[in-house]
């Protein structure tokens, strides 16, 4: 007799397993191929010739690629810090206060998330050209335009994550602190920010990965001297799909996965501390 399949035991049904396998294959096979071929000792990514790390070295020796990588990290860092501050404040504003046209403002904050990236890119390009943003500033000031563009689409994500966290805040906590003699600032520092902390961390990691990965908006706002890593990879691929691109992409992927894991951990801390009270 076949063992009973419980109603929720989806993974014990054959067709479900097959479906799951196909999904994973489509999602991850290309990525695994990319990683595998970054170690392939061959100029062409067609047949496996043997293991090598030389394309990692080649990528490292490509000064344009390394510079782009540095640019990306600098932009992502600044954009993250500013986005966390702005996004946290936006979330607090929408959660704490009552004011006219609040829903309009809330919608405006979400706009950069819904507007197609290509439109955002074109709009940013037009804007920076129109105001005559200088293109020849010394590093890192020349990254200003790209950084501002990144902030504008990163901070709404932070605001959403932090806003979701604030919903679980018990207003009696704030009242208790006030009752014990805390001023508004004391409440923010001692009670609200500690409550928001897991969301601020998760939002920061989200902003960092979004900024690091972004291509479309960056493509429109970066100049010849302010190329970021994804834009650089794109331009390299236009000439040839070399294993060095694979190697560099693998490094970026590793960074992104690492940050995602950290973000998930922060989220888990967020849930367990929410359950505690």
């Amino acid at each position, binding site marked *: 007799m076949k063992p009973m399949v419980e109603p929720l035991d989806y993974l014990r049904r054959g067709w479900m397993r097959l479906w799951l396998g196909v999904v994973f294959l489509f999602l991850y096979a290309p990525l695994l191929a990319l990683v595998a071929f970054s170690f392939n000792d061959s100029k062409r990514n067609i047949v496996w010739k043997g293991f090598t790390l030389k394309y990692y070295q080649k990528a490292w020796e490509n000064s344009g690629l390394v510079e782009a990588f540095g640019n990306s990290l600098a932009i992502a860092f600044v954009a993250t810090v500013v986005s966390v501050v702005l996004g946290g404040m936006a979330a607090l504003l929408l959660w704490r206060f009552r004011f006219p046209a609040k829903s309009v403002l809330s919608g405006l904050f979400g706009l950069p998330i819904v507007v197609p990236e290509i439109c955002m890119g074109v709009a940013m390009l037009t804007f920076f050209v129109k105001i005559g943003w200088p293109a020849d500033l010394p590093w890192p000031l020349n990254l200003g335009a790209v950084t501002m563009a990144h902030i504008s689409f990163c901070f709404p994500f932070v605001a959403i994550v932090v806003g979701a966290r604030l919903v679980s805040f018990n207003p009696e*906590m704030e009242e*208790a602190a*006030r*009752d*014990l*003699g805390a001023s508004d600032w*004391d409440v923010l520092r*001692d009670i609200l920010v500690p409550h928001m902390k897991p969301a601020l961390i998760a939002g920061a990691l989200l902003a960092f990965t979004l900024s690091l990965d972004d291509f479309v908006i960056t493509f429109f706002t970066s100049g010849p001297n302010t190329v970021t890593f994804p834009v650089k990879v794109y331009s390299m691929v236009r000439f040839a799909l070399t294993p060095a691109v694979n190697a560099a992409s693998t490094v970026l992927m590793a960074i992104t996965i690492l940050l995602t894991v950290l973000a998930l951990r922060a989220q888990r801390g967020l849930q367990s*501390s929410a359950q505690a*009270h």
Partner: protein
Amino acid sequence: MTQPIIQPIIQIESVTKRFGPVLAVDDATLAILPGEFFALLGPSGCGKTTLLRMIAGFEAPTEGRILIDGQDMSRVPPNKRPINMVFQSYAVFPHMSVLDNVSYGLKMAGVAAAERRDRAERALEQVKLAGFGTRTPDQLSGGQRQRVALARALVNQPKVLLLDEPLSALDAKLREAMRFELAQLQDDVGITFVMVTHDQDEALAMACRAAVMNRGLLAQTGTPAELYEFPANRFVADFLGSVNLFEGRLAVDEPHRAVVESAQAGCPIYLDHGVTGATGATVWAAVRPEKIELHKRADERPPAIEDVPSGYNVARGTIRTVSYLGSESIYLVTLETGHEVRVTRPNLTRWDQEDFTWDEPVWLAWHHESVIVLQA
């Protein structure tokens, strides 16, 4: 004779609070004396919590004044009032240790770190949580968190401690134990406690005095015994404990005699004092269930009641339901008039519960001192 004048610690003077069109508190005037354990009692939505939050400073009165220790505090923010509060959810800060929680108020007041620690540890001892200082709130039970909230408030030596439904989140056994403990603690620290509760047992058991609120109005203020034995109106009589109300007409109202004629009771109801009401007016004679006697109705001779003329305060009925609660039994009796009366009877011996049973014809009788006439 001159009465010593005690300055009330809290004076609520004609306070009204509106939330938009909703009238939450309606012209409340109340004085709470130093060292009292005072309870604000009422059903949910009666305005008791709003009144407490106005004392704490989380809401400002729409009209009227609130004086604390003689000073008008109506517009003073909560962090500048000599008052601390224990919140319904306890609101213990989850990211701070127990000791940091308790010393938070002292830190805000600028007390030096060493003294803060000392005083916080003493406050924890006071609530029987000595040695719990390094724990975090998620390692505590609900009862322990409540003690932390208590210590956190008491450590600041406030003039008044406010408690918002302090026992509602605890399970029944712990709740009863905490009643005694809170009353004992209040006695030890000598601080005025003001408690909000919807639980009449809690208010009766702990409070020196209580104010009963209904729909934003203060219905009556008094000691628990005054509220129970001398309710001012039907709402108070019904809210505290249970009561049998006989609607009727005030037939006689003389200095030493009053009679209420009630079609619901089926017998005239006699009192040995006047009630200063308009003769002929609609009144309600209220009799508590434990103050009514059950008698067997083997023959049709009504039982005699001391000091009550015969024919008064006796009604014929049939037991409809018996509810045996161990220490006492509740009998629901349907009178011949169709009116239903609740009678409780203590089970003083192990066989008492067998005295009366379902469908048994009985006489109900009550003494004239058990009756109170309500005019509203």
